[in-house]
Structure formats: C-alpha cells, structure tokens
C-alpha cells in the first residue's frame, strides 16, 4: 500500500474521513515552516505543501497573501523540494506538492517529477491543469510512481466526472463551491449530491476542499466524503502564531463519521 492509500485506509479504520492539510512552503517563515508543518502532521493524515506561485488564480485572499509572503521569504522550486525532504525524515505520512503548472513547465516536467520523487513526495495537485492538458505529465508521473490528483467542481458534467476520476491516481479532489479557496460560513447543500455522483463513477477516495475551516464544516464534508481538505483556516492560524494545534484537533474531531 502506498502512503496515500494508507492515509485513507487508516482514517477509514478509525471511522473517519482523512484530514488533508495545506501549508505553503516557506510560510510563515523559512525557519518556522518545519515546526508548523510537523505540528499539523501530528493531527493530519496528509499534507499538501504549497509551492508558491506569483499568479494563483484559483486562490482566495488568504492563500494569495501567504504565497506572496513565502515568495518574499525566498521560496523556490528547489526550496520546496528541500522542505519536503526534511519533513520526510520524520514522517511517513502522505505528502503532496500543490502548485500551478508554470513552475513545473519552467523546471521541465521530467525534472520536476524526479525532484519531487527524490524528496519523498507522493503526489501532485495542480488546480490549473485539467487532465485534458496533462497528456505528457500523466505518463511521466506514472513511470516515476508519482500520483496525480485532478479536481472536480460543482459545475462538472458527467463526461468531466468520468474523465477526471479515470485520470486521477491518488485521490479525487472535489471542490465544494464554484469559487476560489478560502474559509466560508457553511458547506453548500449540493455537496452530498456532487460527491454521490463522483463516487458512482469511481472507487478511488474522494476528498472535498474549499471552505472547510472548523468542526461543523469538517463534519458536513466527512459525512459524505473520504477526505477533508483544509487550507486557508490553517494558514490563518499559522500566520497568527497561536491556536494551530487546537484548530487541528477540532478539525480532526470534525472528520469523525
């Protein structure tokens, strides 16, 4: 079993959804990233390490600002790999790199994949790369054993659901809302229906993200999905420098089925 499968099966054996966290590399600072990430990994089943990008058009203000700060802190592609490698020394949990396509294109697809694998990364999540545009990346990732998670949205048609679930090799990431990342008051009522449609077309784990920020929103997702993705709320707590373990514990409790 690979580390991503382990993350979901461990959670399942504890009757809960997997807790998948997000934190940009180099954030809050180059020095404090490791401690912050390790704190999160005491609770979370998996971590998406954000490789910050200058033009994150899928992200709301919280993650935009965090990414800008990480870039100002000097974060790079090599720095993100180094951050993953360091985390991997102490952790067997699933690690992803979440970024946009241009840093991968700039590095070279094959070189990027090799670097990620060497750093102990298990998968990539690329919100601006639908499977339609990944025809060179998919075989390269498969050869290297790196998993690719593609995204689905409330607007996705059955054709899209079939394509994205077939192309995803780690888990399937369902975006809860039409919109960008960020904490929201509640989870839209259409989420159970959307997750149901996705699960009807695949046996792969389905995680839901965007707008999950506390016990209630985690519960709403955990009731229907295999994983709960939390980003902006953790970023806000990490930036504040207090309350991060408490928030992680709250979300983990909210993951309970």
């Amino acid at each position, binding site marked *: 079993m690979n580390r991503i499968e382990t993350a979901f099966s461990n959670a399942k054996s504890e009757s809960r959804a997997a807790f998948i966290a997000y934190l940009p590399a180099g954030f809050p600072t180059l020095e404090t990233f490791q401690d912050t990430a390790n704190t999160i990994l005491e609770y979370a089943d998996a971590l998406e390490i954000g490789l910050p*990008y*200058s*033009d*994150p*058009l*899928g992200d*709301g*203000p919280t993650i*935009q600002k965090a990414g*800008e700060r990480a*870039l100002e802190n000097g974060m*790079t*592609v090599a720095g993100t790999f180094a951050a993953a490698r360091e985390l991997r020394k102490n952790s067997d949990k699933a690690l992803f790199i979440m970024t*946009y*396509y*241009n*840093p*991968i*294109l*700039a*590095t070279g697809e094959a070189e990027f994949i090799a670097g990620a694998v060497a750093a102990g990364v298990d998968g990539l999540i690329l*919100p*601006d*790369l*639908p499977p*339609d*545009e990944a025809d060179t990346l998919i075989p390269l990732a498969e050869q290297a054993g790196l998993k690719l998670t*593609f*995204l*689905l*949205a*409330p*607007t*996705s*048609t059955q054709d*899209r659901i079939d394509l*994205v679930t077939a192309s995803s090799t780690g888990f399937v990431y369902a*975006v809860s*809302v*039409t*919109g*960008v990342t960020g904490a929201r008051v509640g989870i839209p009522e259409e989420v159970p229906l959307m997750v149901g449609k996705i699960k009807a077309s695949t046996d792969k784990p389905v995680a839901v993200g965007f707008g999950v920020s506390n016990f209630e929103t985690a519960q709403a997702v955990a009731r229907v999905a295999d994983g709960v993705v939390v980003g902006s709320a953790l970023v806000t707590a990490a930036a504040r420098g207090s309350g991060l373990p408490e928030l992680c514990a709250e979300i983990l409790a909210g993951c309970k089925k």
Partner: protein
Amino acid sequence: MQNFPLPDARGRFGRFGGRYVPETLIPALEELNTAYLEAKSDPVFMEEFERTLREFVGRPSLLYFAKNLTERLGGAKIYLKREDLNHTGAHKINNTIGQVMLAKRMGKKRIIAETGAGQHGVATATACALFGLECIVYQGEEDVRRQALNVFRMKLLGAEVRPVSSGTRTLKDATNEAIRDWVTNVRSTFYVLGSVVGPHPYPAMVRDFQSVIGEETKAQLLELEGRINPDAIVACVGGGSNAIGIFAPYAYLEPRPRLIGVEAAGHGVESGLHAASVAGGKVGVLHGSLMYLLYDNNGQIVPAHSVSAGLDYPGIGPEHSYYAANGVAEYVPITDREALEGFKLLSECEGIIPALETAHAIAHLKTLAPELGKDKIIVVNLSGRGDKDVQEAMRVMNDMENAAKA
C-alpha cells in the same frame, strides 16, 4: 466572418493555446464555445453585429494615405488603418460589441472584464450601456490611480470599477481577479476578455471579432492600389488583439505580406524592464493559455514594463506565439524612448496623435520604410488615439529632457 484554419478542436495553434484553467471553468468554456460557434453561423446574429459596427462604431474605419510621413521617411508608401477613429477611440470596441451581444444571446445578465489602461474597460462599459447589461470592471490599483480619466468614463457609462490590490496591481492581476470572479459566479456571469489571450475559445473569438480590421484593409487597398496585399503590415503587440485583427486575414494567404508585430521593449530587452514576450520570453502558461511569456527560472511571472499601459502584459497570445515560432510573422522590439519619438513624429507630421501603444508601431517605420524602398506599400494599424496618453507622455518626456540636461 472568415473561418480560419486554426485553432484545432482543442484550441491549439500548433503547440500554443489550450485550456489551463480550474475545472470549474471547463464546462463554462465548452458552453461558451458552443454558443459562439452557433452565433457565428447565425446570419441574424452576424447581421446585427455588422450593423452595430457600422452604425454605432462608425465602421469601416478609413485606410488613410499618410503622405507627409511617407515623404519624411523617404521610403515605402505608408497607409494608416484608422482604428483610432472608432467610437471610444480604439479597436477594442469591435470585440466588446461582439462578446456583449453573445452574452445577451446566452441569457447572461452580468458582465465582467479586466482592464489595464482602461480602454477595454471603457469599450466593455460602452457595449453594456448599449445592450443594457450590468458591468463590473477589474483594474489594478496602480492603473486606477494612473488612469483616473478612464475610471471616470467607465463609471459615467454605468460600470462598477473594482480596484485590485494583489500582486503587481496592474493588468495581469486585474485579469487574475476577473478569472476568480468568473470561477465564483460562473453560472450567471459572462467574462468579456479584451485580448487574444486566455483559455480557448477566447483567443479565436477575439481574433474573429477583430478580423474586420484586416478584411476591410484588403478591400480598401484593392480600391486604392489595385491589390489586396501590401508589402508589409505593422502593428503593436501586447496581448496582441489589434495585431491579430489585421494579421489573421492575411496570415493564411499564399503569398502573404510581411507581418511585423512590434513589442514594447521598455528600457531595452537586455535591461529586464520590458514587455517583449517573444524577444525576451520563453514558452509558459498564464491565464489559461500556453504562449511566449516572461518568467524566471522558478516559473514565477516577471512583471512587464512599458511606457504604454496597454502593452504592459507579460505574455503574447497563442496565435502570435504560433506565428513567431513558425515564421508567419516577425516580432521586433521598440523601446519606450523610440515609442515617444514615434508619438511625436506622427503628431507633428500628420496631425494625428496616436496612442502610446500605437506609437511603437509608428516608431518601427523609421527603419522599415527606407529599408523597403519607394515602390513598396506598408499598412500600419493605427490601433488607438492618444488623447488618453497626453498627460503620461508629457510627464515621461519631461523626465527624459531633465535627465538629458543633468
């Protein structure tokens, strides 16, 4: 409207183009593509589009023989395609009329747009006023400050202007924010994109609406000179919509004229402070499309620089990228300083104040016209008028004079 051989069904011009966008937008882009193809082949839609261009925009725009400029430069005959005489003062209106009509046909009530200097914002607000739709324009905070007059024009036309404070606070970030709005309100909203960039079908659709420029040029040149092809066509390029508008109807002909796109070289391509995506960029992805783009070794977009806000964009559209990679068109850099000389030259010599964007194309004539020689013909796309730029030009020219004295 002509049917062009590119892009292919996946929205590719060779390797360029595509749809690098969040999944949320993919169904919306498919819906848009279907609606656009239907509209394009609907005679009723096309008739209304053409009538609006004629009666509201004032088309066809003149093809004007620039006698004084021709004599001054002592080479090829220079014709100006007067897009500056369109209603709202630039070529941008051709596209916004088309897209806003399409939005209305699709039953979308809310229009969003990005703008840099404000020309596309004004053109979108104008079309929305004409067709009675709600209009929201995203503009970088820095541009809102620099372009107060256009901000007022947009508001006067009934649009809401939303300043964007992220990133470099210019066109690139206004585009990011417009895309974020569209991702959020995709079910009710139509995004009117202003250049031949963005995910498929935008580069093709904007080109089609702008191709009226080149189609008219063919007919007008035939009447004036007895031939369709000039020897060279010159146009400035940022994202590249005015250039595509005049290039595309010629690009797939055999033989075709020399097509010359003039990029903004800012302080010089070697200075790093420029917007010359072909001369100084690499193949990359921004705003949903694979194209020549300015970015660093880590894939971070490098802010563009140009004296003209309309060319201040770090990429060049996918069809231009294809032309550049395949030798269909040439792309040459012109610096801020050269552009300001072009700005003065056309004003003094012909009594026409061009937009600073257009001044880049004018500046290139100084080398091109003598090089081609007297028996040749050049058509320049005079994409916009310069009224909006006089204050900025005055400031920059004073700075340059003072620097020269010091």
